[in-house]
Each structure stands twice: as C-alpha cells, then as structure tokens.
C-alpha cells in the first residue's frame, strides 16, 4: 500500500463505525446475497421502518451500500470497492506488516 492511496483516518473510522452495530451487520450480510428493497429487510429483521432507515443512512453515508431506483422501488446493494478498501486496510495493520508509508510518520 502506498501513501497515495492510503485513505483518510476519518474515512476509515466511518467505515468501521458503520459496521459496529449488529443490525447493520445483519443488513450487510443480507445484501451480500443480492440487492434487496427496504420491505424485504424490514420483514426479515423485524424492526421499525424508521430505525431501518436510520441504519441504511449510516451505511450509505459510509459508502458501504448504494441505492438503485427501479420504477417505484428502491433497491439497496453493496459497494464492492469500499468493502475491498476495508479489507486492504485491515491487511495493512497486521503485526509486522507495517509499510514505510505510515500516515502518522512514526517510522522516521
């Protein structure tokens, strides 16, 4: 990982914040199957729609999911690029993996 593509710490924190809730993890797991609309998520998760909208907004703001309009329906799907970036970041903080491109310049 080079300095150029290293994501901002606040962005990284927002990704992980989005995944720091059981309901949101459930939503992400359901969406990993295929795109789903709010009604399906509401039915399976058994929570109020207002709460579901809130959780969806957090996931959307973090860039983990995106919506697609189809007629009167809105379908939500996962954003592959963000998930790949999260995995890449997690890999980069393995013990001993520390590259020379430390964001906080602890290396020099």
């Amino acid at each position, binding site marked *: 990982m080079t300095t150029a593509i290293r994501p901002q710490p606040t962005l990284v924190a927002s990704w992980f914040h989005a995944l720091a809730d059981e309901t949101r993890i459930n939503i992400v797991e359901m969406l990993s*199957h295929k795109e789903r609309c709010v009604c399906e998520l509401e039915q399976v998760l058994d929570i109020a729609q207002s709460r579901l909208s809130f959780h969806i907004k957090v996931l959307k703001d973090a860039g983990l999911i995106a919506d697609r309009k189809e007629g009167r329906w809105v379908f939500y799907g996962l954003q592959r690029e963000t998930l790949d970036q999260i995995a890449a970041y997690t890999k980069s903080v393995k013990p001993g993996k520390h590259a020379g491109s430390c964001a906080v310049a602890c290396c020099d």
Partner: protein
Amino acid sequence: MRRSLLLRFTYRWPRERPGLPHLPHALDLQLARVAQWFHATSDTTRLAILEFLSQRDRAAGELIQLLGVPPSRVSFHLTVLTESGLIRRYRDGRRRLYSLRGETLDLMLTFMRTVLPGAHVGTCPLSCCQAGLPYQ
C-alpha cells in the same frame, strides 16, 4: 475504587441487548463480537494506535508520546482495544508492552470476505434465503 478497576466494569461493551436473539452464524462468529471489533476500530486515535503497533510492540508511554493525547485518553482507548481482542498486553521484564493480535485481524478479514456481493455464506443467519420473500 481504583480507576482502572472502575473502567473495567464501566466500559464492558457490548451490553446484553434483549432485542436481538443470538443467531447461529455460518462462521461461528457472534455478531455482538463482530460489532465490538468494528466499534474498536471506529475511532481515529485507536486506528493510529493500531498503526503504531503494527510496526512493533510498544509501551503505553511511547504511545502517549507519539499520539500527543493525554495519558488518560490513551489508557481508555487501550482498554477498549484490549476488551475487543484486537490487542494484548504482556510483560517484558519491567515493561508492559502492547501487541496486535493477528488472529483477531484474520477473523475480521474472513468476515469481510463473506460479505462481498454474491459471496453470501450458505446458511444465512436470518434465513433470508429460505424466507420465501417477494422478488426472490
């Protein structure tokens, strides 16, 4: 009561929540545990600590110096990270060092692989696959 002892009882996270029942997971991961890892990594100071520790094991004093954050804050963040299982503390002579736990980071990566679009693991914890939902 000592402050460290108080912290240990106050910040036990996540608390038991009656709403969500424990669902068996295909990876044998408890979702509360997964949420706890991501909660621990959802703060910029804690991310900086993880990055410093990925270079080599460090003592709390070093981290305080490197981060420029009050010792009490660093101590709090280290407690959150330790409780989530992302780091561990061990004794090296007279020093107490913190190190990353590679196995937890590996589990996080495994989880991230199962939630890629189309990578849905066979036994959905919510049985969204067999629920006979519309638009299936």
